[in-house]
């Protein structure tokens, strides 16, 4: 479905991605993990069209994305829930959701989608006339996901949706991601919360310092020693006794 | 250490930064010799040519070099895009005119124009430098307009030189004052760039936060640039007051002076020593040429040129020269090689 081939990206003179290649198949959950500053957000933004790659190709069902404007990428069904949520805070919950269905494709079914999204997030229905800025962190994340769903995504990309949220809410959000997948939406998920993400993932990639350094099925990586040490908080016994 | 960080931030963009280094190269003698030649020629003009028109034109070029260069010191070097330059020019003109026509020895009245502008600049500098970027620009524009309106309300009458002064009017003298002032301003800008402050000033332009973080006294460096800038802008105003037979005092406060300084500097090349010089020559010559036939057209031409420079050609004439030069040299080499072959 999504095919990324040797993508490089940079901010001015500072290169952030080097030869990144990655594939997402239809109706998979693919997880991307990596330390802070690895370039995960950069990769998401590059796919979404907010950032132009220096070189390489990004194909979606065989057609090029890396030359297309971000709003047209949305029209094709690739929707990013950005890092930090990026809600329209001065606008109401309902307006945020309506704006999510701005493309021609999504607008036609806007009311129907809205009902569906409010079913998934009943809390948002209750607060539909409140300003987005008045929501709690967890509710804001739900609104961000809801807004993306309003655009009828075929590939939904989430950039650290659990960031800064309480464990209970994180669990809820992961359940929602799973149910979204079960509705037939393909998911590309960036997470710091590697354990939960890998449990959910069909496949995963590890990005470090702008390069893909490993890939495998979710359960393979969960049981890989290096991954456990680096991302799941298991330090080897010797190291622990030393510190 | 700081030097390295700052140098990296400034990168290759700054022509002024690279020229001192270029001087140490083998053909360094060419620049100074050429410069001395131009200065000598400029000094000899009144002796060689005795057309008042030409002298007047050269006077205007010198005045505008000063005007542009003084704005460039603040906006081009320190990155503070002021739209209030007319205030300094106007204050300079007002002070010199008033003192001089009331009997003060001209050189003293002239010097005081610069100092008065500096005094005013230091007064407004501390509060306005809290504003960043465009806010600084519109804030300074507001200040200059307040001054202009106040002056036009209080001094509505035209100021005319006494008859005796008009009878003894000497354009050559005025031209020499203008030439000396322009050269001094250029010299001051060049000295500033070679001084130990230049790094701090350029760092403030490139990235204020980073400069602050590396320990640069941001406000201090801005004030220093403003000090020098306003001093020469004030003197330019003083020169204007010395040259004009009659004018409305508020005319020296007109935002047109700011706008001309902007045009000159951008056309020539913002942030370079040569920019305002080339810009002023180009500006005055084109204006004079077009003013004869089509009064408004030169402004339209400058407007279009200005937009193009901001959008696609940020280096101005100096940048164009720099970009073309390598190609020109390469071509010259190629043709010479071919000469050898044949």
């Amino acid at each position: 479905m999504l095919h990324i081939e040797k993508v490089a990206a940079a901010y001015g003179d500072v290169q952030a991605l080097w030869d990144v290649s990655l594939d997402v198949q239809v109706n998979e959950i693919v997880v991307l993990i990596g330390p802070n500053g690895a370039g995960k957000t950069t990769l998401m933004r590059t796919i979404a069209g907010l950032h132009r790659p220096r070189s390489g190709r990004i194909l979606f069902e065989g057609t090029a994305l890396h030359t297309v404007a971000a709003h047209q990428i949305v029209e094709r069904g690739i929707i990013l829930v950005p890092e930090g949520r990026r809600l329209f805070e001065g606008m109401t919950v309902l307006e945020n959701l309506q704006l999510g269905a701005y493309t021609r494709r999504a607008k036609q079914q806007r009311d129907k989608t809205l009902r569906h999204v409010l079913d998934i997030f009943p809390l948002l229905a209750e607060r539909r006339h409140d300003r987005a800025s008045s929501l709690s962190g967890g509710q804001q994340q739900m609104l961000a996901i809801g807004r993306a769903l309003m655009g009828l995504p075929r590939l939904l990309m989430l950039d650290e949706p659990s960031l800064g949220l309480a464990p209970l809410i994180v669990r809820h959000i992961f359940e929602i991601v799973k149910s979204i997948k079960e509705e037939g939406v393909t998911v590309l998920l960036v997470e710091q919360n590697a354990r939960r993400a890998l449990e959910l993932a069909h496949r995963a990639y590890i990005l470090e310092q702008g390069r893909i350094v490993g890939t495998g099925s979710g359960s393979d990586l969960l049981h890989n020693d290096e991954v456990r040490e680096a991302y799941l908080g298991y330090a080897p016994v010797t190291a622990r006794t030393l510190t | 250490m700081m030097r390295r960080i700052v140098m990296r931030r400034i990168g290759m963009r700054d022509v002024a930064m690279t020229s001192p280094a270029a001087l140490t190269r083998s053909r360094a003698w060419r620049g100074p010799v050429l410069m001395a030649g131009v200065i000598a020629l400029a000094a000899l003009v009144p002796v060689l040519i005795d057309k008042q028109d030409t002298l007047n034109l050269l006077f205007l070029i010198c005045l505008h070099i000063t005007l542009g260069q003084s704005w460039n010191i603040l906006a081009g070097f320190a990155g503070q895009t002021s739209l209030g330059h007319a205030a300094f020019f106007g204050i300079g003109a007002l002070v010199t005119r008033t003192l001089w026509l009331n009997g003060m020895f001209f050189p003293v009245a002239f010097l005081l124009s610069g100092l008065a502008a500096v005094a005013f600049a230091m007064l407004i500098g501390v509060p306005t430098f809290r504003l960043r970027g465009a806010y600084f620009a519109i804030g300074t524009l507001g200040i200059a307009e307040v001054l202009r309106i106040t002056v036009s309300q209080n001094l509505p009458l035209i100021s005319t030189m006494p008859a005796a002064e008009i009878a003894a009017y000497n354009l050559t003298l005025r031209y020499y004052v203008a030439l000396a002032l322009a050269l001094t301003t250029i010299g001051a800008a060049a000295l500033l760039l070679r001084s130990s402050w230049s790094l701090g000033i350029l760092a403030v332009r490139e990235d204020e936060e980073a400069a602050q973080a590396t320990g640069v006294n941001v406000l201090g460096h801005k004030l220093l640039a403003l000090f020098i800038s306003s001093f020469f802008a004030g003197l330019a105003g003083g020169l204007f007051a010395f040259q004009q037979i009659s004018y409305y005092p508020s005319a020296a406060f007109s935002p047109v002076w700011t706008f001309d300084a902007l045009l000159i500097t951008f056309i020539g090349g913002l942030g370079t020593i040569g920019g305002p010089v080339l810009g002023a020559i180009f500006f005055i010559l084109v204006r004079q040429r077009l003013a004869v036939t089509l009064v408004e057209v030169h402004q339209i031409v400058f407007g279009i040129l200005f937009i193009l420079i901001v959008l696609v050609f940020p280096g101005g004439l100096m940048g164009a020269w720099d970009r073309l030069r390598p190609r020109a040299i390469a071509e010259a080499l190629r043709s010479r090689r071919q000469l050898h072959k044949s």
Partner: protein
Amino acid sequence: MAQNIVYGLFVGGIYGIAAVGLALAFGVMNVLNIAHGELLMFGGYISFWLFSLLGIDPFVSLIICIPALFLIGLLLDRLVYRHVARLRGEAKIKNSLLISFGLVLILQNVAIRLFTADERTTQVSYIGQGINLFGIALPYTRLMGLVIALVTILALHLFLQRTDSGKAIRATAEDWEAAELSGINVPRVYMLTFALGAALAGIAGTLVSVTSSVAPSIGLDWTLKALIVVVLAGTGSIIGAFPAGLLLGLVEALSSIFISASYREVVGLVIFLLVLLIRPQGLFGSREAA
């Protein structure tokens, strides 16, 4: 005194319309268009010429003037401002200011060539007439001007709040990247926004040509008025610029009573400077909105 205050409000309505146009481009696009006063001047000329050549009442000719300025706005965005769209934040504001300075030169001198430097006023037949209410004269031209200003603001408010395009404009103003990620064509929104701002300048210009006069040189003064108002309102606020415009009109009226008529311009500028230095978020704006 009451007469002065009423006149202050009439003038303030025009300030408000002029300022809302400037605030639109600034708030949504980060474009500081100091050629806004020149757009206003062109609006004034359009209504002046339609009246003096074809005899069309200036309040009727708005239906020509508004689309004309809208088109000019579209064109300027395409030709010029589109090219700074890639820049962000401070750099964009500064470059747009510089570019619009070039536009000032062009538009002002084109106007001199086309219309000469003379001052013009649209002299409608009912220019001196009006209602007298408790001893306060209310000329028809001024009353109509205020009504048109109010209707314009109401229409703009409804457009921004109720329509999809209006919501897209507000969303883009808040976060253009999030807007793109919602499928909003941000360059198109910018174009629409700038054109709307120009159309508002056209309305303001028409009102100026009827109630005072237009000349090629009036641009800077009107840009400054609009800037003062935008700063008073707080730079994040679009519709809020309208009440701030009324306020400026009022303050000017009061200052010509209590200080001196010749300093009314200065008073506005001084307030502008104080607000800029002390409360950069504007008199009414909250800190986070700025």
